[in-house]
């Protein structure tokens, strides 16, 4: 019953509009992203360098602790960081998305604009951090050279992997953004799950021949790849560390999970969306 000039609030039928609206409202989206970036970095003299500090500290710790004391191979820091930076992007996005609606009460209650812009602006913001942090990956690969030559045609997989990851965080991001309005413990559940994910995903270790997974029966190996991050992070590692193409079966499982979670996320978001203003 609303004229076309008014932003669509999305009836349940228009799941695709979740994304087509983004182009129409790209100016709002851009403003929200630049708001986040400016607000985050304006008051800091080092500015964007702060985005690098956290992963930089971790590389230093890894290279000192693991390679010096635990006698890991000298390329160990680069093996970790090629998965750590994509993992960081994943966690920052989900932590941010879960707060994206409940953290903007006054806007959501008063102004009518497509609500999916809020979680998606969080993802866009962290995509920029992701790009900045990627310079560390390059740096690490130069300093701690991997044992295999990685400069090859397989590098073309990188944009594909990034797109899959964006799809994955968008689906889960919409899911937790909407659910957290109705159930306020969702943000804590997300935090706990992310902590667990850090250890069950191949960040500090790899599912290769010497991995801890070898000690378990086969089904553990497959269950492990039900975690959509596993295939994805292993994919990043194959391309950037082992210089091969990703394992298509495990990456395929990640893609399948991305679609399942994406469908669930979009549906759930629009179901909760009808009550956003009532519940905040």
């Amino acid at each position, binding site marked *: 019953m609303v004229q076309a000039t008014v932003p669509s609030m999305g009836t349940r039928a228009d799941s695709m509009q979740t994304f087509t609206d983004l182009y129409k409202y790209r100016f709002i989206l851009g403003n929200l992203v630049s708001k986040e970036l400016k607000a985050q970095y304006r008051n800091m003299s080092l500015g964007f360098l702060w985005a690098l500090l956290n992963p930089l500290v971790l590389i230093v710790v890894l290279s000192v602790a693991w390679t010096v004391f635990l006698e890991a191979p000298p390329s160990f820091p680069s093996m970790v960081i090629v998965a750590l930076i994509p993992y960081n992007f994943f966690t920052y996005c989900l932590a941010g998305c879960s707060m994206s609606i409940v953290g903007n009460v006054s806007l959501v209650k008063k102004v009518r604009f497509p609500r999916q812009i809020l979680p998606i602006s969080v993802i866009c913001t962290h995509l920029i951090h992701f790009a900045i942090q990627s310079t560390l990956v390059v740096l690490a690969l130069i300093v701690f050279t991997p044992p295999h030559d990685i400069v090859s045609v397989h590098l073309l997989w990188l944009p594909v992997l990034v797109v899959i990851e964006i799809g994955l965080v968008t689906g889960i991001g919409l899911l937790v953004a909407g659910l957290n309005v109705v159930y*306020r413990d969702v943000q804590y559940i997300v935090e706990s799950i992310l902590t667990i994910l850090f250890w069950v995903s191949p960040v500090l270790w790899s599912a290769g021949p010497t991995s801890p997974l070898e000690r378990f029966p086969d089904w553990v190996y497959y269950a492990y790849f039900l975690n959509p991050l596993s295939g994805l992070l292993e994919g990043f590692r194959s391309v950037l560390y082992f210089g091969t193409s990703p394992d298509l079966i495990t990456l395929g499982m990640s893609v399948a999970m991305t679609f399942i979670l994406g469908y669930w996320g979009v549906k759930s978001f629009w179901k909760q969306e009808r009550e956003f203003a009532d519940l905040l």
Partner: protein
Amino acid sequence: MPAIRVENVSKGYRLVKQKPFLAKEFLRRILQRPSSAGYFMALKDVSFEVPKGESLAVIGTNGSGKSTLLSLIAQTSYPTQGTIDVRGRIGPLLELGAGFHPDLTGHENIYLNASLMGLSREEIDARLDAIVTYADIGEFLDAPIATYSTGMQARLGFAVLAHVEPDVLIVDEALSVGDGGFRQKCEKTMREMLARGTTLFLVSHDMSQVRELCKRALWLHKGEMRMLGPTEEVVHEYLNTWLIHTAEADGPGDSPVDGDAG
């Protein structure tokens, strides 16, 4: 064609005793316990129309459903029953300072706020000078909002709203925060907007403001329409009822004059 058409609208809220938690909800479903949530009707079968360029005031005591009606008109929440049709761009007056980010400059906040209300970059570029002149914040334009006084934030907020040129202007209690001069300036601007064809939807406890700005008034009582008609008659009846009521019962706690929007 009316600017706002509200037809048999009812709005119910789930009445929850405490915030629901996902973990608890899972447990409840597993144990198959019935939900404890009740239902509360905040608006019951409300119908009215506001023609383009007209103004309607909504009055009523706390808890009468005014804010609920406001959020329905602003289209931020959905009616449980009935239909609401609002034509054109909606300009909600945010609580002063809300919607502004304290770390961003006035200039950046103008773009953020105006874009949320539906303006394109070109439209904001064209209006920027007028907004800055109206807000009268001078060299503070490039300083973070956090350094603004409350009055300056209020002026900037209203300046953006006035220049968004909404087809339907929604004003809650927000105006009561500014000083006398600011309020007069706002009211003058609102009258100018009305003259240009903007439709005004005002929720207020300030009867003099209601009389000044609105031709018609709607009196809500416990979610139901008590009276709809010319402002003078409705306000007169409303105040009379309350005078009698307070004389009889010696004040049931919610006086018609003060308090926040219901």
